[in-house]
């Protein structure tokens, strides 16, 4: 809808890096905040240097990784090793409602941009640090990379094929989980500030946000001293439940029979109605008992048809199923395209490319991706002039001091 943006007039100074922090500020940009990323060409964000590069041609403004998670933001180039740049960054923070950072512990303080400094520049400031281990505690100075968060959190020890080693989950899951929790905390702090005028500091540990989504495993331990064993795609209560081979090269379909009524519908849908009344399969407990054999029955059916056909047949019968979608499947998904989920906005370097949009819709407010990701430093002059209050001569002086690279 074309109403007002929820965070219209809220400015975010974004000192983040890689994925967790930029994913946090992306949510605020979707809601209409003016998010200003502080960057430097002397050490660009890792995601600017990683593929996929548009048409395989590397370049800091050509990465799909950066361009996905920085949509709708501005970029100011400041080399924070220069004192002139630190002063500009302080002015930016003083003119911002929210400061977001995910450097290693102590980096912002050493640059003169720590909470104790910034809160004096702006009394009602909200600042959030999204770190791997959190700002306090004996491990707070440890280094954390996205891929290492999944094993650290405990997720890997319970994820994997039965009898196989611990595994990853396919993405650096601690990053988006941390970033989304960060957005929740910032929005709650903004609501509190709107009512009371009070700002605050938020210490977010990605390790802790990753454990917040593992209660089944953690409570299994605290209650019984036992963790769930790695069991592939199976579920303790539902069967069949998994990702099954379909016709075609490396094509798979996920399906779950949620209860015994769904089993009856499933049996009819695959042309084996007799399975519904067979006591070997009629109850979830019985199906769990002979799950290997059960999965052979399922695969005999899924293996003979495409995942799309299996999905259509099962969903029409009220049984949960869907293709294990690849990136191409998603980009071409008729449902997501019909919903207008994808965003294609012009970018000065890579042109118009398909990007992922906002996973929620608002019936009244203006909530959307507001623009393509910025080129590095695209908004430097505008932000220095309109936000930090520098005149043209001062901007020239900053440029000559090599602070604006």
């Amino acid at each position, binding site marked *: 809808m074309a109403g007002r943006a*929820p965070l219209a007039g809220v400015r975010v100074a974004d000192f983040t890096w890689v994925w967790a922090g930029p994913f946090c500020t992306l949510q605020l940009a979707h809601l209409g905040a003016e998010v200003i990323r502080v960057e430097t060409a002397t050490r660009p964000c890792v995601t600017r240097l990683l*593929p996929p590069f*548009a048409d395989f041609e590397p370049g800091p403004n050509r990465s799909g*990784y950066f361009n996905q998670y920085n949509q709708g933001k501005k970029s100011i180039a400041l080399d924070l090793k220069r004192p002139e740049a630190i002063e500009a960054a302080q002015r930016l923070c003083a003119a911002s409602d929210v400061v977001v950072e995910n450097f290693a512990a102590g980096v912002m303080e050493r640059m003169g941009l720590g909470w104790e400094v910034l809160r004096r520049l702006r009394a009602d400031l909200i600042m959030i640090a999204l770190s791997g281990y959190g700002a306090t505690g004996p491990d707070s100075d*440890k*280094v954390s990379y996205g891929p*290492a968060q999944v*094993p*650290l959190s*405990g*997720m890997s*020890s319970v994820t994997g*094929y039965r009898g196989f*080693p611990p*595994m990853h*989950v*396919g993405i650096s899951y601690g990053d988006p989980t941390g970033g989304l929790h960060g957005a*929740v905390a910032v929005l709650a*702090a903004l*609501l*509190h500030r709107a009512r009371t005028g009070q*700002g605050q500091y938020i*210490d*977010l540990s990605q390790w*802790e946000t990753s454990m917040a989504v*593992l*209660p*089944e495993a*953690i409570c*299994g331990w*605290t*209650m*019984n001293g036992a963790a*769930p064993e790695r069991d592939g*795609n199976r579920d*303790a209560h539902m069967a069949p439940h*998994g990702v099954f081979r379909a016709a075609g090269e*490396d094509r798979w379909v*996920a*399906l*779950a029979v949620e209860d015994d009524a769904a089993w009856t519908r499933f049996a009819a849908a695959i042309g084996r109605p007799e399975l519904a009344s067979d006591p070997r399969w009629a109850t979830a407990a019985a199906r769990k008992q002979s799950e290997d054999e059960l999965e052979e029955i399922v695969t005999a059916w899924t293996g003979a048809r495409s995942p799309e056909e299996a999905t259509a047949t099962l*969903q029409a019968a009220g*049984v*949960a199923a*869907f293709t*294990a*979608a*690849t990136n191409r*499947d998603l*980009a071409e998904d008729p*449902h997501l395209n*019909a*919903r207008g*989920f994808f965003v294609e906005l012009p970018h000065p370097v890579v042109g118009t*490319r398909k990007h992922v*949009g906002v996973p929620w819709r*608002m*019936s*009244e407010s203006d*909530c959307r991706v507001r623009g393509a990701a910025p080129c590095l430093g695209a908004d430097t002059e505008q932000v220095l002039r309109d936000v930090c209050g520098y005149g043209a001569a001062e901007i020239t002086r900053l440029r000559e001091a090599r602070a604006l690279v």
Partner: protein
Amino acid sequence: MPAALDQLQVLEVGSGVAAAYGAKLLADLGAQVIKVEPPGGGDATRARGPFPGDVPHPEKSGLFLYLNANKRGITLDLTRPRGREVLERLAARADLLVHDVHPREMAGRGLDYERLSAMHPALVMTSIAPFGLGGPHAGYRGPDVVTWSAGGVAALNGEPTRPDLPPLKAFGDQSSFQAGLNAAIGSLGALFARLATGRGEHVEVCTQECLAAILELTFEFWPYCGLLASRLGAKPIQPLCFMECRDGWIFLCCVEEHQWKCLVDIMGKPEWASMELFADRLSRGANFDALQGFLQEWCREQSVHELYEAAQRRRVPLAPVSTMGDLLASPHLRARGFFAAIEHPVAGAVTVPGAPYKLSATPWTLRAPAPCLGQHTAEVLAEIGLDAAALAREAVV
């Protein structure tokens, strides 16, 4: 200390993880949440566990107790007209109604935004659905294994050397946790907008989209390069791999060249490490078959903790593959006070994950255990001038 959201009245019609986690995020920051459960069995997570001693009991599910602390709970049969009338009266004094009732069943449960909004224009209603409320697949069903696959995450995870093994989902109902997080963000956004407009609105959260939004760098390989992302692709950079030590598993993580040099030092500069095959991160990736054997042979003699600490002293981001026991025993997490103790009248003492963030002025709090089924029905109904006993005679509560 004040709570950030203590003025907020929330009505949750949730069964499972998604709406319950979205409402929990708000409850833990002070919101007053009333959870509506169907009479009889209540929320589905009451039957899921884990349970003490593995004995199922509707008041002892660890998952339910975690998700629903800080909430009051009532029972209400929304399939009956009288139950839907009561829901309307409760919605009339709420700021936010969050639910994850399937779109096919929403109207039959009284979750009609147009109608509720006409009566109470300031209401924010947030609907979570596996495939959203509109579009050709809106009626599709989707528990976690299905949405995790539909959102493109499952296809990214597997064992590259074993194409016969299927795409693998992550442990736990992660699809619903992601949907709940997005629901909290959309809801808070709408509540912030309401400060300026005075009007509520309908927020729609699509779980499939929540997952398609977290594919790291893989989605863009198609629009940027026309390349398929696959679970079978070998990692271009190594070591980024799991290794078995003498007392558990560790994750080796050397992204930068200097990190690899530090690890080689820690290993005592073995001769094989100077082989041309392993000269840089890309060649280590290309020759991972050979590298893996050497690394595994060395790691098997190491202790996880000693290797982790030795690497971290050199700023190399290795991490242990934490078991649940490791997490509970971590001195760091203990110093931060991460785990929280719930004292529940039926389940007794239960330790659960605690604050995911520390807000200096308005901290996360644990104020009350999860409600027993229908525990607050009489209390809440009395607040809107209704007699629970009369409704119980009509089998509505």
